C-alpha cells in the first residue's frame, strides 16, 4: 500500500507536558485508517500538527510524498487534506448552504469578486447537503441546528473542498445510534469512491467495523498498528486502552 499521510519522529510539548513523543506513523492510501488510544495520548495534537494548526517541535510530516511540515493550514487544506474538529465546528450565524459554500476547493485562490452564488457551486453544495440528508435545512443558520445536524453539516463542508484525504476527529461523539450507522455507511461509501480516511474515534464498534488499518497511540507515540483482527487481540493494546 502506498503512503498517504505519514510522520517521522514527530514531537510536541506544551510546557512540561509531552503530547507527542517521537510519533512515526504511516497511514495507507485509499483505506479507512483509524487512530485510537486513551484520552491524552496525543491523537488530537497529532491531527493539529499534521494539518498545520500547530507547529511540531521537531519531526516531519509528509503527505503524498511531499514534506508539508509547518505549512499554513489553508495550504494543507487546498493540497487535498480536509479535517473536522473534535467538538464539531460550524459557522454559527451562516446558513447551512453558506457554510458549505465557504469551503475552498483545491487550487482555488483568492476567488476575487466573483459571485459566491454561482449555479454550479450551489448545485454542488446542495448535492452534499442532500447526500448527508440535511438539504431541507439549507436555509437555516447553523446555530439553529441540532448537534447531530451540525456534525453532518461540518462533514458536508469538508467534502465540498473535494479532499483526497479526510481526517475526522471523533465523528461519533455525541451522536445517536441511528445517525452513527448512517455516518459509518457514508464513510465506507466515500472510501469506495476513492477517498482516504483517518479517523480518531473512541467508539470501538464503529472503529472495528469500518476501518482497514488501525494505529494505537499511547503517551504520544504509536504502540501498535495493523488490521482490526490483530489489534483486537494485541496484548499491549488491551492493557493500555481496551482495559481488558
Amino acid at each position, binding site marked *: 500500500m502506498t503512503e498517504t499521510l505519514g510522520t517521522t519522529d514527530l514531537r510536541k510539548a506544551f510546557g512540561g507536558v509531552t503530547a507527542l513523543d517521537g510519533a512515526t506513523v504511516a497511514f495507507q492510501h485509499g483505506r479507512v485508517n483509524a487512530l485510537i488510544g486513551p484520552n491524552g495520548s496525543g491523537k488530537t495534537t497529532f491531527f493539529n500538527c499534521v494539518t498545520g494548526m500547530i507547529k511540531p517541535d521537531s519531526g516531519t510530516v509528509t503527505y503524498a510524498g511531499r514534506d508539508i511540515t509547518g505549512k499554513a493550514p489553508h495550504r494543507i487544506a487546498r493540497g487535498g487534506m480536509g479535517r473536522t474538529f473534535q467538538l464539531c465546528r460550524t459557522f*454559527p450565524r451562516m446558513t447551512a448552504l453558506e457554510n458549505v459554500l465557504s469551503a*475552498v476547493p483545491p487550487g482555488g485562490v*483568492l476567488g476575487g469578486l466573483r459571485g459566491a*452564488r454561482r449555479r454550479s457551486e450551489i*448545485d454542488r453544495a446542495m448535492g452534499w447537503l*442532500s*447526500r448527508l*440528508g440535511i438539504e431541507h435545512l439549507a436555509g437555516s443558520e447553523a446555530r*439553529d441546528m441540532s448537534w447531530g445536524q451540525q456534525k453532518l453539516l461540518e462533514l458536508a463542508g469538508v467534502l465540498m473542498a473535494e479532499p483526497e484525504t479526510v481526517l475526522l476527529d471523533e465523528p461519533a461523539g455525541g451522536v445517536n445510534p441511528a445517525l452513527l450507522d448512517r455516518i459509518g455507511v457514508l464513510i465506507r*461509501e466515500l472510501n469506495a469512491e476513492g477517498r482516504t480516511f483517518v479517523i480518531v474515534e473512541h467508539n470501538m464498534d464503529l472503529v472495528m467495523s469500518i476501518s482497514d488499518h488501525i494505529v494505537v497511540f499511547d503517551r504520544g507515540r504509536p504502540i501498535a498498528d495493523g488490521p482490526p483482527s490483530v489489534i483486537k487481540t494485541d496484548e499491549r493494546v488491551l492493557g493500555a486502552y481496551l482495559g481488558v
Partner: protein
Amino acid sequence: MLNASRYLKIGAVVLLAVAILAFPSLAPNPYILSAGVLVLNYAVLSTSWNFVGGFTGYISLGHGALAGLGAYGTGLLVAKGGLPPFLALFAGAALVAALAVPIGFAALRVRGASFVIVSIALVLILLLVFQSSASVTGGSRGLVVPRPFDLTRPEHHRVFYYLFAGLLAVALLAWWLIDRSRFGLGLKSIREDEDKAEALGTATFSYKLIVFVVSAGFTALAGGLYALWFGDLDPVFQFSILTGSYLVLMALLGGVRQLFGPVAGAIIVGTALEYFKVEYGDTPLHLVATGLLLGLVVLFMPDGILPAIGDLLKRFDRTQKSSIREVTAAELREQRRGEQDDPNRTAMTEAGR
C-alpha cells in the same frame, strides 16, 4: 412573503436616498447644512469601518487614525506639495492604503481584545508623531488647508454635502459587491470561526489584509474630503480615540451585518452628537449619553437596530412562520418521516454532483 419584505426594503432604501439628496434644499440655515455634512462624513467613515468590523468581526478603534492620516495626507499634499485638491485627495488615500499594508500586517496577527488594543495604540502613536513634528504638520497650531472652490459658505457646504453623498454611494456599492462575493463569504467565515475557515482552505491572513487595505482607503478618502471641506486640521481632533469609538457605536447601533446598518447608526448617533453639542455646549454630557446609548444597544439589540426592526416586521407578517420552535418541529417530523420511508437514505440519494 419574500417579495413583500423585499419591496419594503427597496422602498426604505429609496426613501433614504431621497431624504439624503433632498436634505440640502430643506436645511433652514448653513449651520444645519454643515451638521448634515458631518453626519454624512460619519456615515462614510462607519461604512468604511464596517469592511473590517462587519465582515471579519475585528473591532478596530483605530479607524479615526486612518481618517486622520487621510486628512493630513491630502492637506499636506495641497498646502505643502501644491497639488490640485482632488488629485491630492486620491494620492493621499492611495498613500494611506499603502501604509495600511504594514499596519495591517502587524495588527491583524492578533485577535479579539489584543487587536482592539493594538488599534488604540495606532491612534496614540500617530497623535504624538503629528503633534511633535510641528515643522511639517503645523503641530498643535494646526494645518490650514486651502479651500478647493471659491464659493460662499452655504454653497461650499452644499457642494461638499453632495461629494460626501457620492463617496457614501461608492463605499456602499463596494461593500455590497464584497458581501455577495466568494471573497465576502470567506471574510464572514473568518468572523464566525477563523481556525475553521483556515482549515477549509481560506487564506485568512491575506483575506483580512486585503479588506483592511480597502477599508483604510475609503476611510482615508473620507478623511481627505473632510480636510478639503473643513480647511483646518488639529492632531488632537484628527487622532482622537473618540472618532474610532463613535464609528464602532454607529455600526453596532445600526447593525454590522447590514449594508445600511452603519449609515442608519451614523444618522442617529451623528444627529444626537450635534444636538448635544448645541444644547449642552462643551460639557461632557454628550459622552455620557453616547456611553448610555452603547450600553442600551449591547443589552437590548445586540444585532443592531435594522435587524431588530426586521424582526418586528416579521412578527406582524402573518404569512411567515411565527416562531423558530414551530419550524424545527416541522423539520423534525419531516426528517423522521424521511428516515422511516427509506432507511438507506444516504445510499439512495446518489451524490448530486
